[in-house]
Each structure stands twice: as C-alpha cells, then as structure tokens.
C-alpha cells in the first residue's frame, strides 16, 4: 500500500510532497521517475506534485503529459485508482485528459504567491471526506497559470455533478476568482470514473504542519493514503 509520487524534471515540490506524505501523514511512499513505464505493483494512490515540469516550456504540463510514465498513470486512473495533482500536477492532469478544461495564465499576467481562503465544496467525495460541508480553509497558492477555464457546458456539468472540489472565496462581480480569474472561482475539480482524480492549484502540502501556520491541507493528504 504505497503512495507513488511522480517526479518529472522540474518537479520542484517533489521533496516537500515526499516529506509531508512520509513524515506528517506517515504513508509509505515511492519516487517514480518520469521515464519509468510502470508503477510499482503495490501502488495504492498517485501524487503528482507541483513545480515547473520541463520548465513550463511549450505550455504548463504539456511535455510532462507525454512522458512514458503518464500512460501508466492514465491507465491507473481510468481503472479507478486515486490520483492527486497539485498545481503543476493539476495542469498535467488536464493536459493528459484525465480532467476537463485548462489552466490559463492568471488574468493579471503575474505570478501569484499568497495564502488564500477556500471553500471545500465537494465534500461528498471520498477525496474530500476530511472536510466539513462547505468548510472554509486556508491554503498557500503559488502559480502563474492557475486561471481555470473550460467551455460553458463543461463548467455547468462540473457544477451539476458537484465535481468542484475547492473554490476561491474571493470572487469578482462575474463570479471569477479574484486571485487568477478562474471560472466560478474554481480552484480544484474532481474527475475519473469513480470520482477518483483530483486536480487543484492550492498546495495542501505547504499547510499540513502547525509550525507552518496551519494544517488545513492535512485532511486531504491523509485521504490520499487511505482507501477511498
């Protein structure tokens, strides 16, 4: 029963994610290199950490989506295996087609690093069971391309199916997140055949220890190490 943490060149949050999963959550973890073609046999869930895989060249997540390991990740997810993608990991999940939509550059054109208020929305899902319904939490964000965009139909379907996992609390008059312009303030969404894939821009691994100002990310990371 192991959490596989995927490492691409430029996965800057790999070490942080590994540290929290191992030392805070207490999970068994394994580093999976992007050139590997198969996941370890005892993989129970997958964590795609944040960073700048391939330097964000071409488009965030675009090159990572075509690396050998991603075929195995896709297969794992399509069979119902749990996959969490954080920040660049979310971008990779969209690029590889496991989640709908895309992360566009922030509407103000600047990188945005802050701690933001979020509403945990999709609490009926296994991934989100550590949060109360509509619980308000705070998580760090750090991204240049976090502006979630999808067609109206997709957005409506996400809302109708309650596949929005996290929403930025601060929204503009059009209901877009003030942080980055994302549609309906969407910060994270759920997909997969068994609601088993979660992509999110905020970083739960940077707020899972009280020494860093709070543990709002911990319930989520704990569920990654448990059965759905």
């Amino acid at each position: 029963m192991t959490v596989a943490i995927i490492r691409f060149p430029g996965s800057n949050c790999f070490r942080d994610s590994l540290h929290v999963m191992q030392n805070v959550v207490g999970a068994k973890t394994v580093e999976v290199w992007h050139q590997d073609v198969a996941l370890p046999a005892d993989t129970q869930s997958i964590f795609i950490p944040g960073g700048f895989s391939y330097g964000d060249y071409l488009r965030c997540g675009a090159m990572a989506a075509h690396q050998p390991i991603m075929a195995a990740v896709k297969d794992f997810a399509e069979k119902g295996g749990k996959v969490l993608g954080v920040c660049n990991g979310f971008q990779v999940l969209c690029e590889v087609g496991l989640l709908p939509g895309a992360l566009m550059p922030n509407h103000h054109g600047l990188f945005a690093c802050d701690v933001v208020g979020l509403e945990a929305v999709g609490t009926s899902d296994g991934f989100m069971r550590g949060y109360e319904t509509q619980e308000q939490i705070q998580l760090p964000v750090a991204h240049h391309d976090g502006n979630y965009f999808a067609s109206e139909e997709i957005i409506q379907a996400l809302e109708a199916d309650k596949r929005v996992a996290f929403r930025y609390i601060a929204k503009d008059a059009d209901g877009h997140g003030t942080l980055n312009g994302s549609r309906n303030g969407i910060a994270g969404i759920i997909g997969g055949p068994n609601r088993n894939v979660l992509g999110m821009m905020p970083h739960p691994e940077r707020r899972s220890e009280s020494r860093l100002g709070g543990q709002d990310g911990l319930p989520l990371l704990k569920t990654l190490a448990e059965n759905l």
Partner: protein
Amino acid sequence: MSELKPYVHLQDQDLTDPSHAADASLTDKEYEMAVSILGRTPNKLELGIIGSMWSEHCSYKSSRAHLARLPTEGPHVLQGPGENAGIVDIGDNWGVCFKVESHNHPSFIEPFQGAATGVGGILRDVFTMGARPVAAMNLLRFGEEKHAKTAHLMKGVVAGIGHYGNCFGVPTVVSNVAFDSSYNGNILVNAFAAGVVKHDGIFLGVAEGVGNPVFYVGAKTGRDGIHGATMASDVFDEDSEQKRPTVQVGDPFKEKLLLEACLETFKENLLVGIQDMGAAGLTSSSFEMASRAGGGISLDLDKVPMRETGMTPYEIMLSESQERMLLVAEEGAEQRLKEIYGKWDLDCIQIGRVTDDGCVRLNWHGEEWGVLPARALADEAPKYHRPYEAPKSALRLAEEDHRLFLQKKPDDVVDDLVGSGTLASKKWVTSQYDHTIGAGTRIGPGQAGAALVEVPQCGKTIAVAIEADGRKGLANPRECGRRAVANGVLRLAATGARALGLSDCLNYGSPENPRIMWQMVEGIDGIADAGKALEVPVVSGNVSLYNETDGTAVLPTPTVATVGVHEDPDQAVGFHQMQPNDVLVLAGWSATEVEGSEAIHASLKTNVGHVKDWDLGDVATLSDWTRAAVKSDKVHAAAVVEQGGLSFAALRLALASQTGVHLHLPEHLIPENGDGLHGVLFGEDKPSVLLAVSKEHVAELRSSASALPLEVIGQVSTDENFSVHAGQDRVVQKPLKELQQLFDRTIPEVVA
C-alpha cells in the same frame, strides 16, 4: 562582435601597438604590466582574457586593498571570502552557505533577463559549494517612483527574479526595495542565496591532481554575454542600451536540472573541485580553479559544447552563457558522471586536464592558441590605491528644510511615510515570488524585518535579512555601513534569531572619483567596525563600481546580508501576532533628532542631512537582550526602530496584526532640543526595538533589562485607529483602514 579580427597565432602576431589594450578595456599601464608578466605581447585571444580577468568586476582592483580590513574570521566561519560563497557553522555538522551579488548593469539594460540571470548566478555560487539552496532574497533600488523608466524597470526586474527563482524552486523570502532619484540611470539588483551543506560535503573550486580530467557540464555555450564582465566595469552613457547583446539569457529549468545532477555527483566522491562559470565564464572559472590549486589547466576549446556554429576560441572563452559548470573529476569518474548528467539531460564533456606548469593552455583543434599564467591573472591583478577624499564641508540638513519639516503635522508625516515607495507595502513585489516552496517558511515577506526558513533536511531554522540605506551614506558613508550591519543583527534578534555571518555587496559610482572612492572606503570601514563589535564576520561578497550615468552616481549603497539561526523557532515572532491586551514596550534609546531620518525625505524629497553614529556597544546590548526576551516566550511581536522611526515601527505592528495601536509618549521622552515630538516619533539617531508583550510580563522584562532603558509607551487598542498622545495632547489620530489602503496601493500605483 563585428570588431573581431581573424585570429593570429602566437608566432606571427604583431600586437606591440598598445592601442589594442583599449579593445580589452585595459589601460596602457595595465597592458604594459601584462606584457611584462608574459615576457611578450599577448595575442588577441589572450588580450581578451586578460581584459576580463583584470576587469573591476573580476579583479576587485580598486577595492581589494580595502576589503582586506573586513573581519573574516570567527568561531563559526567554515569558509571565508575567496571561494564561490562563504559558509558558517550552524551546529550538528551542518553549515549555511551564502553570498549576495550584484547584477546591476545587465538589469538596467534588459531588466527581465538581467535580474533573472543574477538570481541564477547566485544560486550556482551556492550549490557549487555542495549546498542545496533553501532561501533567496534580493535588494532592489530603483529611480524615483514617478520617473519615466521606473515602472518598466521594476516590472521587468521583479518578474525576472520571480521567473528564475520560482522555476528553480527556491523560496524568495525577503525583497528590500527602495527608490531614489540617484538610481534613475543605474538601478541596483543585488541577489542573495543561502543553502545548507554538511561539513563533510563542502566542495571547493580547486583544480588539483595533475592529470585529472576537466569536465564541462550544463548548458551549451553561445554568444551571449560576451564581455559582460567588462560591461559591468564601465559607466553608462546614453548609448548603453546598445549593450543589450552583452546581457545573458537565463534558463531556470536547465539550472534546476544542473542542481539535481550536481547534488547527485557530490554524494559519490567523483569530484576534486567544481566552479560555476559566472562572470567571464570559462575564463574566470579555469584561471581561478588553477590558481587556487597552484597549478595549471590545459583546455581543448574545440570540445566545448556549442549552441551556435562558427564560434571562435575568443567567443568561447568570454561567453557568459548561463547554467554551466567546470568540474575537475577523479580519474575514472567519466562513466559515472556521464550517467548522472545524462539522466538530467545535460552535456558532460571532458575538455581538458589538470597540469602542473601554472599555466592555462588553450588549444584549438590540436594547436595552442594561448598560454597564460593562472596565478598572475587570477590573484595578482593590478591593485589600485586610488586617491580618496572627504567632502570639504559635511552635508547638513538645510535650515529651511528642517523648519518646514517641524511645521508638518505628525498626521501628515505619517501619511508621507506610509505612502512613500520605500516604506510602503511590497506585497505587489513579493507575491510574484514563490516564498512558501520548501514547506519551511516560518516568517516570510512583510511579516518581520528578517525571514525565517526551517530546513527539514537538517532540522535548523535559518534567519536572513538584507539591508542598505543609501540615503544615510551620502553624509556619513561609514555609519551607513555600520547601520547596515547593526540593523541586520537587530532584525534577526527581533525574531529571536542569532546572527552568525555577513555577506556584503558594495554598490558605488566610479572609483576614479576621489569622493566616490571615499564613500567606498568609509563604507567598508563601517561594515568592518560593526562586524567586529557585533561579532559577525564577512564570509563572502561582491563589489559593484561604476554605477553612474552621465556623471550621476548612485547613493553609496553597501548592501549587507545578515545570516543566522533561530534556535527555538516555535518562539519566533514577527510583526503580525500582537494580542488584544498587549502593551508596547520600547527597549533601547528613544530618538531625539529628525536630521538624518528617512521621514525628511519622505516628506520633503530632500537630502536627509547628517547621520549620527550609533553606539555599537548599545546595539550589542540591545540585540542580546531582545533575542533573549523573544526566546523567553514573553513577546508577541517586535519591530526594530529604523526607517520611519518609532511611529513607523508601531505602524508595522498595527498593520501586520490588523489591530489599532495607541502610543502614549511620557514627557521625559520628548527631547528638549527643538525637534520635540517630531524627534521622538520620526528620528533614527538611536538604536531601539519596539515590542508587544502581555501586561503581566512587563515587570519581569524590566528586571531582566538591567542597564538597558525600557519604557512602556503604548498599547494595542480595539478602536482600529493609530493614535499618539504626548502628555495630555492627542497629536496623531488616523484610522488604520485608511493607512492600510495607502500602504497597499502605493507600489501598484508606481508600476501602473
């Protein structure tokens, strides 16, 4: 590069005409010195190399004689100046490796790439020593807020720093930003990085072991940055923007790969020495590595991985292409090195061998194109004792300005402070830096005068601060250096951390001007005075001269980065955690004079006048007591009284903690020298720290203070105002919300 003539071989050259010296930015005298060292005239390739090695940027020829006065030793020093970066011991077999360096000239010419590659260079300086970077900071100086170029330069520089540091994956935790008209034509971009390294994992830039292979690893060499070092050693004029092609282009992704690959090789006992190809690229790295080992290197330049076709030995030796390292490996390590660098998609090519003849030999397709002595170029460059001279009359605050300032209502001065670019919130800047990556930022940007980063791999919490107040340097450049050190030590103490070492970056105008030279000499002596008195040695640094355009020099700006550890990070405090019933205690000596204070400039945009010397013994007493008080768990928030005086220190606490503050100044604190209330509220002539503590702890703190003055001067209030009473009179009353808006909107307006 159209000037380049075809190469001449050693045997058939005729460069006896010293006018060639100018091409390499050498003076006639320096050219003669080179000829006498070689015993012959250099060829064009050699001349270019000598010009770079003896540039101000690489040789410190104007500053070396004075830098020798800096204190560089102490019980915590593991590596002092002279290497790629310095290292201090933080206990348990761990060290923190750090350096601050300028990238001023390139950043003015091309702000995004100039600043980005400044970050890249300083990160390489740190990880080439074996240390994984864990924190970055920067000190930025721009022209006036309303100057035509300021918005463009600031947007480019901040985005460039963010781009590089974020993609590389290091938290950028402090950005010290200020504005002054003297920087209109010469901005300052000083970048700092710190990393952690085990004592037995430190690598040095030495080319030891005759016959050992020399490897080139990292990105390929292109034509970018050729002559960067000489460009950075020149004053600017109106044509300077044409120097754009000499600015390098950075690739932070490549650097991230280089970091991981280097750290993997460090673990395996494959290397003898390693050095970053920074300023003057392959030239400085090869000459310095050979010189440190007292030997030589023979290089086959045709083997260097090249990005462009048709490159010449001259271009290869002087390119400043980024993300490259020179390695000296153990014999037999080649296979393993290629595996590691190949895994990270990086070139790893043997381009030479270590020799014992003391020379760097440059070969091109089997023919020798240049032979130069390593030590003479790296360590025996010209050293100038340039004349220096203090101004005939000391700079004072004009009487008229003094009178005007005292006539200003304190309410209005508070607005001037909060709305000045230098003191306003830098959130627009720091939100563009990833400051939480690493999952260790305990105290980040804007939360204190220093930042605290906990490093899980070694269980230590590193404390860092960066400071230089150029406006104080104009009248009293020595005190400017002393304050940069003193404030750094106090800022660390105010979080509860202990300073262990310094890195300095000396930014001045042309050293050929005796007044500027005086500023630098005084600045160095100031850092030396305070470094000795406060027991913080300088372990690394950099000098940036010729920061002037059309005769206008920058304010003397001796940047000091202070580095230390926090032994008990659970007790750490910043500005932001004042509690509802806290009282405010002023520890130290309350100010008495407005002359020399930032408020003068914030209100009147004029010269601040003379700056009084702080007593460094007082600073030592204050910092020791403050650190102990914070660690005793009795303090909720603390701010050093510096720019903006007591009023601004109180405001920082109020704004960061989102709570009102009332100050009640006892009669005896109001000076009788005529500056009165303005003196105590806005002056900076004495060292002090403002602390927020629970009422019940005041008596205990007082008894621990012994000779250190301690005064209760205010309290946290619930009415969401910032107010000041002097005796019975209410002298300041401002809604906090209004001040917060001004504080927040000032910088966005500068860049709008």
